[in-house]
């Protein structure tokens, strides 16, 4: 049977594939198309049943999408792609390096008169920041299981500007020679630090729990549930407790450093994560009819 590949936007016929069986999958179509256009690697190809429809999954069989006797399939080039791992490593390595430059080489940033005795909290803050991004790098490599292999290349510039920009912004003020330690002294520092550490642990617990939800090599989707670790009990109240903990950690950091730029960074992150949480919450509710009604997307009872 004959499959005609049509450009989704222009309607032009791009190619015709002859040797596909009705049981062939979208992935087979992609592989065949790649043979014709070698520069279009599989992750860059998107096929739809309708010109403006949703992207079909690789596992979808042609006979299940109405193409058992051949027909038209619509193509979109997603553009150059990068693996999520590449993007995340770039995004997270930047803030680590940048903050440590401000911390360990103040003369480079603030001029030769920069060195002066540092408040204890500045050292603690540097340790926390380093821990946070080292943890993220570790999780990217060993913990997370990604649904999609890649994302568009543009994202790496946009995301890196955000992470690296804010890293420089926060690092500049916390490590500044004229930095003012928190108003309530050590008590405030320890309070912020405790908050930071508990929330980091919580965030990590959730990431591990989500990983265990999905057997290796699969794209299974299940409803996450509270487990034996008390930090996972937040699942009973929110869809994305990892985001909740992340906001909590940065709130702790902000309290510890009493630094407005850190607060703005927390706010920006909270805003973005709230949008993501709402999206995930909506998807879960669509996919699972029995999704727990008491759960909110990101803030218990509120948001």
């Amino acid at each position, binding site marked *: 049977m004959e499959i005609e590949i049509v450009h989704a936007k222009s309607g032009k016929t791009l190619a015709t594939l002859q040797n596909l069986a009705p049981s062939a999958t979208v992935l087979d179509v992609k592989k065949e198309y790649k043979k014709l256009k070698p520069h279009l690697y599989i992750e860059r190809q998107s096929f739809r049943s309708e010109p403006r429809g949703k992207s079909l999954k690789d596992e979808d069989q042609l006979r299940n999408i109405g193409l058992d006797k051949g027909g038209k399939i619509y193509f979109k080039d997603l553009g150059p792609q990068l693996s999520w791992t590449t993007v995340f490593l770039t995004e997270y390595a930047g803030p680590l390096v940048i903050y440590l430059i401000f911390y360990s080489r103040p003369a480079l940033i603030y001029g030769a008169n920069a060195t002066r005795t540092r408040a204890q909290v500045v050292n603690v803050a540097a340790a926390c920041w380093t821990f946070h991004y080292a943890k993220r790098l570790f999780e990217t490599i060993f913990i997370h299981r990604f649904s999609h292999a890649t994302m568009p290349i543009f994202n790496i510039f946009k995301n890196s500007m955000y992470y690296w920009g804010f890293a420089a912004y926060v690092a500049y*003020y*916390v490590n*500044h020679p*004229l*930095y*003012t330690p928190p*108003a309530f002294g050590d008590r405030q520092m320890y309070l912020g630090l405790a908050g930071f550490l508990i929330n980091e642990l919580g965030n990590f617990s959730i990431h591990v729990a989500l990983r265990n939800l999905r057997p290796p090599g699969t794209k299974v989707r299940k409803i996450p549930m509270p487990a034996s670790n008390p930090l996972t009990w937040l699942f009973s109240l929110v869809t994305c407790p990892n985001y909740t903990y992340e906001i909590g950690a940065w709130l702790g950091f902000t309290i510890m*450093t*009493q*630094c*407005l*730029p850190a607060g703005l960074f927390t706010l920006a992150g909270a805003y973005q994560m709230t949008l993501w949480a709402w999206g995930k919450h909506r998807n879960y509710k669509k996919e699972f009819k029995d999704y727990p009604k008491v759960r909110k997307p990101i803030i218990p009872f509120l948001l």
Partner: protein
Amino acid sequence: MLVLVIGQYMKTRHHFGIFNEVDRFLYVFQTAAVLEVLHCAIGIVRSSVVLTAFQVTSRVFLVWGVTYSVPQVHNTIGVTMFILAWAVTEVIRYSFYTFSLFGTVPYMLQWCRYTFFILLYPIGVTGELLTIYTSLPRVKASGIYSMQLPNKLNASFDYYSFLILIMLSYIPIFPQLYCHMLAQRQKIIGGKMIKKTQ
């Protein structure tokens, strides 16, 4: 909105005077323009919320953040230019919206809306930029809206640099807005012209 339209008519009659006569109207009505964003959001006006919010923000910023905050610019040519450009634009725009609410818009009004901007936009922008530029020395000298280290919040803000950044932002933004209006003109009036001759 009708109240705003009447208000704008009053403003037009006054704008040939000096700033002192206009200032109260300017403050009240440009600030009231915040309502425009609401109107777009609830749908009684068919405009993009984002674009409208953007324009209202920039107007309110210019009125309060620059003109009100730096009294020395009041009698400069820049201020007169943007007040003039805004006033004429608003009369046309609000009349256009009002008629839209009733259902039909006289072609003449539509033509004005999508033609006058060709001159008014550059005049307004020039006036705005001149005003900001003139305010700079005073901003630097007075340190208004600025915060320096050390302080309890461990943050700093330099209003002078911020204003310069705003001026620079006109470079990418103005062509985009202008071209958008030109494209709209093509779509709405260009199309009409073709229909008429057929």
